[in-house]
């Protein structure tokens, strides 16, 4: 076993600075899940094709499996675990729970992250804009789409969520 390619890296996640030993080429997803013990960002395809791993990086939805650690730098990473402190993520989560918007729920982490990123935009995107983003970046195999879209409708009908 060798640790030749490991480096000391600082990562700002969910409001805390973490110091870890990892390869700069390691994916953000693997570091979140295995080094920081944050399982909320799921491993789906590992290839940027399904969106299960999506997290917020400086407020933008990023596929963590496709994001090498070196590219994150000092950006603020927010994962599902921060749902209680991140206003938009919390609003999205409330709407998803209210609509029971999942079957297995495996895809939902990533979808909630993408929707949270979208409702942070101003002006708020339309339903069609949101569907276009979900279509491009997320897969759901269970066919929970109708209820996920009902949760999106619920969010759109609510007052705009103020920035945290």
């Amino acid at each position: 076993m060798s640790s030749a390619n490991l480096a000391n890296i600082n990562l700002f996640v969910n409001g805390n600075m973490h110091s870890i030993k990892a390869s700069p080429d390691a994916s953000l997803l693997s570091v979140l899940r295995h080094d920081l013990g944050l399982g909320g960002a799921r491993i789906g395809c590992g290839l940027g094709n399904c969106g299960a791993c999506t997290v917020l990086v400086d407020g933008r939805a990023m596929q963590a499996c496709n994001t090498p650690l070196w590219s994150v730098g000092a950006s603020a990473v927010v994962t599902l675990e921060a749902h209680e402190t991140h206003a938009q993520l919390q609003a999205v989560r409330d709407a998803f729970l209210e609509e029971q918007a999942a079957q297995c729920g495996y895809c939902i982490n990533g979808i909630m992250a993408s929707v949270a990123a979208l409702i942070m935009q101003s002006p708020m995107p339309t339903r069609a804009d949101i569907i276009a983003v979900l279509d491009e970046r997320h897969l759901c195999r269970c066919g929970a789409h109708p209820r996920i879209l009902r949760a999106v409708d619920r969010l759109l009908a609510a007052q705009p969520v103020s920035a945290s």
Partner: protein
Amino acid sequence: MTITKAPMKLPANLASNPNLSRWAKISADGSIIVRTGKVELGQGAVTALAAIAAAELGVPFHHVRMESGDTTRTPDEAYTAGSFSIEHGGAALRHASALVRSLFAEAAARELGVEPGDITVSDGVFHRPGHNEGRSYADLADKVDLNVDASSLPAPDYLAPPDGDAEITRLDLPQKFSGAAFIQDMNPAGLAHGRVLRPPHPHAKLVFLDRDLIQEMPGVLALVVDGSFVGIAAEREEQAIKAVEVAAKSAQWFIGKQLPPFSVSNDWMADVTPAESSLLLDEAPLEGGEAGQISSVYSRPYIAHGSIGPSSALAHWTDGRLKVWSHSQGVFPLRVDLAKVLGMPVDAIDVIHAHGAGCYGHNAADDVALDAALIARAIDRPVMCQWSRADELSWSPFGAAMRSKLDARVGGDGRIASWTYDVWSPPHVVRPGGATGVNLLAAYHLAEPFEPTPVRSPPQPTGSGDRNAVPIYDLPGRRITHHRLPQGPVRSSALRSLGAHLNVFGIESGMDELAETIGADPLDFRLAHLSDPRARAVLEEAARLANWQSRGAGGEGIGFGLGLARYKSVGGYCAVVAEVEVTEKVRLRAIYAATDCGRVVHTDGVRDQIEGGIVQAASWTLKEAVQWTDEGLTTQGWDTYPILGFAEIPPIHISILNQPDAPPLGAGECAAGPTAAAIGNAIAHALGIRVRNMPLTPERIETAINAS
């Protein structure tokens, strides 16, 4: 409070697990643990089971904590499959819960000095009517021994079951919406990461591997090579992935046998000798029937389960015992096959269910459990083994490819006079847990390989490849044959609805084709051959939702199509109307569905299953096919195995016809066949041209147009 006397005969799953302590644990601290052998696969089953148990125990829904699928403590209810969780699992759990409540009511009666018949329960407290004094489950926990055989107890009374609309929310979602929740997220101390290098082709055998090269890779803890099985354990996940990449480059394989050429209509099936051809019905055709005649061949390809999460298992050996966490549909049967391969007694293995992504049948959950056990045996640490996306879409068992042929005639009176239907299919149920043989992938690749378990085909009326091969209609002159083929070019096992997807597609396409030969409306034509009142009710309800009367002549690019079936011939009824627009692609404009799944335990749960069933079946029907070339399977990722996306989801209108007095029937699978049929018929209506080989892709539609 008593509404019905329970049957004397114990429900089957309780009779085979009669000790009540396998079903419930009630403690003096107030906790009420309910145990089921059925597991949560994302279908909401454990939530519905909790509602059933809570209603029968007389406690609020949220007081119940569920434990499921654990060989160390829950009942063995074999698999969570076949839409049986509520029908069978629920029946057993209801009875067990009623017995538990009766034992507590007796203890309360002793405490309060009254007859048990004078005791009622509400909100978890046993009372004498008109008196405030009561005893809770917690108060009585030490006075009741649940280590008792259910068959030794008198039949209990049943309380009112959940009414479907009670405030029930999914038990598993809050955690899944908060953080680590799935098996893939388990992160025990000392975890090592396991990966397997699979052969590049279904018939490839390993001839060379540079073991030193792999063993010297950073982080590699163990390399397990046994025949063509190559497993790697590494310190970090990315190191395991890297090691497999390097191993793949160094490995040399011998491809022993070619795959048959891929064909859109599964023509290769005609060259296969069936393991068995069984004649399900052989009736004499009626005279006449000269007005219209059809002879059509339908097919579907192999279809991937395509879970969004990779199949994973956590295995840990300690002191010669093995503990496995798995998202298997059947932890007990999995344990049986693990024991055979690992050469150890069954009771030296514990298998515990953990949440996985939706599986929709028998995916690689069981296979990866053996992979993890084989790799973990080489090191003294827990190993999380995970499949790659490519292996998931090329090595998991698939839903079987199928082909069917319908020859039918209709008379001038509008009545069908003869109906000859043949269906060819490789096996649909190739699960672990059989008496002999092993159904786990790695077992076939070992230097001393195991034989697969001989395939047993579930008999009619439920069937497998012949599931729903017998039409729901009142037809004379039926001759229906099921040609059971051996395993085909790739491994197949249970995928949601088994053969019903193609059989209902074929039957319902045929009904439209026959109606067309005599210029009848497809709805009227069906109703004229349909006496089952519940089937008529869902059909008429779906037609009403869709405003069927406005359907028009079609042929202008917009079409309406119908599909109807009673799942497994004895399960839930479902009728679907699809409204499509066909341009250079097929757009679903709307789906209308009506279902009757007997008594509804949880209305939103039924809606969820019907919605999901429709979307998934639409995806199979329009887009999906596992494909191969001489080099092996070409479907290795979501880019080569596309599924329906958010922009393609139509508005879905569902009507649930509750039958409060009928037994509950499963809802998970009944929409699949009718959805496929409705879409096929809608495309035919839109274009005046029919495509009979699924998936109904733009290319195939164009080919059909050009050939017409």
